[in-house]
């Protein structure tokens, strides 16, 4: 037991003594948290639109007025011909081109069918659908407004189903409240996994590991001794990150923070097992970095952080079960935003505990003092 303490002490001295690494481990992740939370905003806030009006009527001007009045649309041009509007789309200056056909008002007043033409840059499918959705909503409102001007006798009234919608837990649909807890969880794990993956392989590259291997130290003592300082760093980062989230983004913390910390502890142990296991398998720090980066990348992309897990195909959803980042992100969001209790996240705890056992077992087994 005392031997363990000496290893922990040594790791701490090395970590704290490295003036170049210290800011990279403390300040940088917090800056990342702030920047990422501002950047990782999937809300489509601004759509650049180019409108060609071939009608030049009262009605077309009213429509354009309603579009430009929306905060979400920026009118970047009103070219006189449709061909010129297409240029805006090609050059990428416009996201959407709206063409208002000639005789738009005339045909409408006669009760004939009129069609607007909408060209959407659909390379980014999601942004395209959302942007077009905004425009359709405006056109729907426009339809309701202009119907009021049509004499009721000439109208055909159909039965309606109205929809009243409400969003629970985040009524203002604040995207940052959703992203900050997830990003924080992700950052804690990336940092810890990368540092631990480069740890023992570094001692092997420098040669200090040989000196350790001739001492009577046990594999588990060595692994555990390396792990404890990283757990501290991870927990510290979580604390600072949560504080930052509260102060800067006013992230709601509905649930019990104790559950978050307890889960973080468990998750760190699991993730450190992965990192140290990688470190024991590879020969150089460069390899360690690449392998760790590869796993981190797969973990992040498939964690549900940026795209909902529910949208993935069945097999991909199964693959998220052994993904520690997916569980961390889920627990952070559930507990902080919805106030989920221990019972609600019991499944995440159970899976993570299994991951921790498996990977730490592998880490201890793969650390060989004798070759």
């Amino acid at each position: 037991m005392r031997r363990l303490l000496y290893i922990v002490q040594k790791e701490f001295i090395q970590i704290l003594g490295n003036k170049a690494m210290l800011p990279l481990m403390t300040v940088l992740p917090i800056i990342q948290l702030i920047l990422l939370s501002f950047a990782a905003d999937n809300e489509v806030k601004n759509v650049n639109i180019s409108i060609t009006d071939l009608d030049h009527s009262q009605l077309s001007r009213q429509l354009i007025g309603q579009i430009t009045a929306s905060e979400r649309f920026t009118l970047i041009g009103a070219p006189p011909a449709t061909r010129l509007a297409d240029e805006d789309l090609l050059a990428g200056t416009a996201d959407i081109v709206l063409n208002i056909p000639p005789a738009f008002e005339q045909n409408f007043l006669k009760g004939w069918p009129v069609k607007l033409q909408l060209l959407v840059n659909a390379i980014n499918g999601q942004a395209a659908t959302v942007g077009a959705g905004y425009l359709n909503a405006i056109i729907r409102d426009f339809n309701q407004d202009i119907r009021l001007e049509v004499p009721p006798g000439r109208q055909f009234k159909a039965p309606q189903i109205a929809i009243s919608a409400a969003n629970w837990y985040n009524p203002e649909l604040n995207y940052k409240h959703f992203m900050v807890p997830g990003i924080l969880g992700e950052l804690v794990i990336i940092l810890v996994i990368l540092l631990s993956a480069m740890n023992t392989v570094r001692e092997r590259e420098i040669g200090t590991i040989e000196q350790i291997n001739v001492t009577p130290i046990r594999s588990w003592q060595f692994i555990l001794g390396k792990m404890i300082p990283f757990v501290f760093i991870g927990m510290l980062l979580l604390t600072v990150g949560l504080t930052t989230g509260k102060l800067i983004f006013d992230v709601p913390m509905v649930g019990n923070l104790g559950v978050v910390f307890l889960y973080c502890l468990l998750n760190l142990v699991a993730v450190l097992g992965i990192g140290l296991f990688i470190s024991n398998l590879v020969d150089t720090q460069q390899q360690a970095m690449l392998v760790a980066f590869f796993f981190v990348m797969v973990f992040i992309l498939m964690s549900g952080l940026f795209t909902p897990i529910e949208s993935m195909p069945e097999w991909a959803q199964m693959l998220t079960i052994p993904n520690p980042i997916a569980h961390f992100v889920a627990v952070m969001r559930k507990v902080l935003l919805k106030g989920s209790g221990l019972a609600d996240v019991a499944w995440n705890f159970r899976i993570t505990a299994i991951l921790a056992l498996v990977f730490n077992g592998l880490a201890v087994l793969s650390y060989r003092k004798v070759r």
Partner: protein
Amino acid sequence: MQSYLAFVRKEFYHILRDTRTLVILFGMPIAQVLIFGYAVTNEFRDAPVAVIDNARDELSRELVHELVSSGYFKLVDQPATADELDALFRAGEVKLGVFIPPDFESDFFRRKQTTLQFLADGSDPNYATTLLNYGSQIVGNFQQRHAGGPENYQVGVEMQLMYNPELISAYNFIPGVVAIILLLISAMMTSLTIAKEKEMGTMDLLLVSPLSPLTIILGKVTPYVLLSMSNALLILLLGYFVFDVPVLGSFWLLTGFCLLYVLTALSLGILISTKASSQQAAMMGSLFSLLMPSMLLSGFIFPITSMPWMLQKVSGVIPATYFIELLKGVMLKGLGMQYLWFPTLVLATMTVVLLSLSWFNFKIRTK
């Protein structure tokens, strides 16, 4: 020239002997493309829904059937109260609750007006919005079918999805993956190899050799240029054959842009390695100052126009932003230089500036 070739050969052997690294270097883009193509989609299906049906009449059953058979929703539970729904939300089992009021059918046909209630788990705002949009669309169609004909005096919309009519997400991410992988190999790997030579003390050995510093640096980066280019080709081929992502424009123009970007990335890598004293520092430096920003601020994952003003400015100094613009232009829109001269110019300028900066730094070190 002779000594340069010999040096390149030596560096190549180093890389080729390290099979593990090679496997990762080529496995990473493949995995990324496949994950993005198959797993990480914003395409939307089988969202877990709970229905509280207080009407239990013909029309309500038909509506529920319509929601489920659309493929977008999956009925997982039928709770009795709002409290039960809350519990389902908190356990994360349900993302949307649909309340159908009593007398749904009779209200619809007699009073011509009835109100459904949609309750979404708003903790994920985008998912909630998407759920509500799809839900309303289905209800809208349902209403029109039962209402007996469309209303007159309506402005219709004819929508054309340009460049990606089937909304295939691969169109958007293939250029992004190319940008990230090229950065990873050209910038991160180079900075690590040079930092390693420094850490091991072998850099001094090279510097006192008759090789000129320029030869050393060129020799170190040449293999990575070749690796990067073959990786880019691999990704483009995968995109073309697996996901039908086209290359509408000139292939040679595309190759030229890739080379230009690789140069930019290499000069970044060299710059980092002249600053970093250890492999760990080089890794952290390139990870947090290059890879993360390039992934998140280049328009690869999140639309730039929606970012706050400050971050849009940051996005404007990230090489990947311009490279992705170039790739999308050539591949998906089939554009030529008359549309793309601006991003090309920006990338070229960045490369020149970065190269001279790192050259300057390197000089100082050798003195």
